[in-house]
């Protein structure tokens, strides 16, 4: 190995990733807070009232980024699961484990804000719309992943079993989405469709995008915090954790 090449696997070791994650968290958390504040300002102060939906549409600034993140985090989780299965790295599995609760949270947020949005605009909290239904199933997939992890005591076995599940789920997510979409077009006629929404003002799109970045950085910060806790929990028998704890205590 030449000295010029960067050793990408250096940070695959929990011991060297732990301090790196600790240094990164404040950056991501601060950017998330600033971006969220800017997005809320754009959404509530700058963006005009919508012609057809009135003020109720403003929940879009939370709802859409949450829905994006819910799907994106599942893909990232599946990516880390694939890494953990193929490269057999512990840290990849820990990352996947750390991402799952944040992903489930965003899925729940997307459903919850969707219901709150649906009541004033469609007149119902819940319609069996294709997106809503597949989002609900995505929530079940997250719960299944976390429940399987939780049910297996041996962490290495939990890593690998839940990784297989996450990958099977990732293959299924698009199939579920299209099947539900198709089922939906067969069944229902009258409900308002999200896809035919009127063209969006540029400032609304900007607000949504900024909030999406805020949600992204928030997810990274949360995942890093959680992965640090997981690392400590699972590496507690090692010397470096004992050293770190001793230093902290002094």
């Amino acid at each position, binding site marked *: 190995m030449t000295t010029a090449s960067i050793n990408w696997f250096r940070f695959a070791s929990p011991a060297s990733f732990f301090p790196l994650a600790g240094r990164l968290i404040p950056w991501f958390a601060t950017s998330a807070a600033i971006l969220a504040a800017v997005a809320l300002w754009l959404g509530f102060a700058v963006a005009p009232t919508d012609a057809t939906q009135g003020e109720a549409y403003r929940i879009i600034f939370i709802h859409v980024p949450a829905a994006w993140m819910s799907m994106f985090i599942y893909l990232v989780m599946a990516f880390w699961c694939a890494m953990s299965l193929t490269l057999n790295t512990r840290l990849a599995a820990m990352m996947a484990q750390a991402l799952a609760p944040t992903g489930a949270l965003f899925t729940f947020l997307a459903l919850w804000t969707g219901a709150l949005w649906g009541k004033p605009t469609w007149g119902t909290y819940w319609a069996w719309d294709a997106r809503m239904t597949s989002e609900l199933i995505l929530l*079940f997939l997250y719960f299944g992943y976390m429940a399987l992890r939780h*049910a297996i005591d041996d962490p290495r*076995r939990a890593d690998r*079993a839940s990784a297989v599940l996450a*990958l099977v789920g990732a293959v299924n997510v698009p199939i579920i989405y299209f099947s*539900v979409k198709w*089922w939906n077009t067969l069944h229902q006629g009258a409900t308002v469709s999200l896809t035919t929404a009127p063209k969006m003002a540029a400032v609304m799109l900007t607000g949504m995008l900024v909030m999406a970045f805020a949600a992204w950085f928030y997810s990274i910060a949360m995942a890093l915090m959680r992965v640090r806790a997981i690392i400590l929990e699972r590496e507690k028998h090692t010397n470096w954790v004992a050293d770190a704890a001793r230093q902290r205590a002094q």
Partner: protein
Amino acid sequence: MTPLDAVIAEAPPPAGAWGGIAWSASRDLKLALRSKAELGVLLLFYVIVVTLFPLGVGPEPALLRALGPGVLWVASLLASLLSLPRLLASDFADGTLEQIALSPFPLPALIAGKIAAHWTSTGLPLAVVSPLLGLQFGLRGDELVVLAVALLLGTPTLSLLGAIGAALTLGVRAGGGLLALLVLPLYVPILIFGAGAVEAVCVGLGAGSQLSLLAAALLAAGVGAPVATAAAVRIALE
């Protein structure tokens, strides 16, 4: 002839995938036929669940006709779920699964054989009985045929997808409820296409597209699921 050649000449022929499928399918079928009562219980479960729906929603013929395909499919999903633990759990409990994993046959092939036997002893009887139950819901002629064909195409996919969940939950706490949580979301597309096929015939459209999609799902699951299940079995056996 060197000693090594003699060893090679006496060694059994390499174990192929088809041999593995045939061996494990015939073994599991033999086992299933020896506990016929268990299969009967599953079939009765299916019939009883289907019977409960008219009692719950009322005997209105138009309503039952609209509900029929969905009810029959949901009941098949539940019956499939109920039968999944017997696919691997008993072999895992008495150590047979470990021996199977050690055999010279490729593990995915042995698993595929087990799944085939599982479907023959659980999914196939459901599909055969279903036209009879469809009659109770006021389905007619073509609709009954499509119902049976859709179940014949869909229930193997349920067994294949369910096998992954069954392997992942081997020897895990709270296996039953967890299995439902893992497997039922994956069943959603099959439910939609399966029930959709019958409904399409009910409203006078052809069921060709839904049946094609069910067949496509079966082929995709048939290729992927045994491999994923074998990986999950190896994880459980570690």
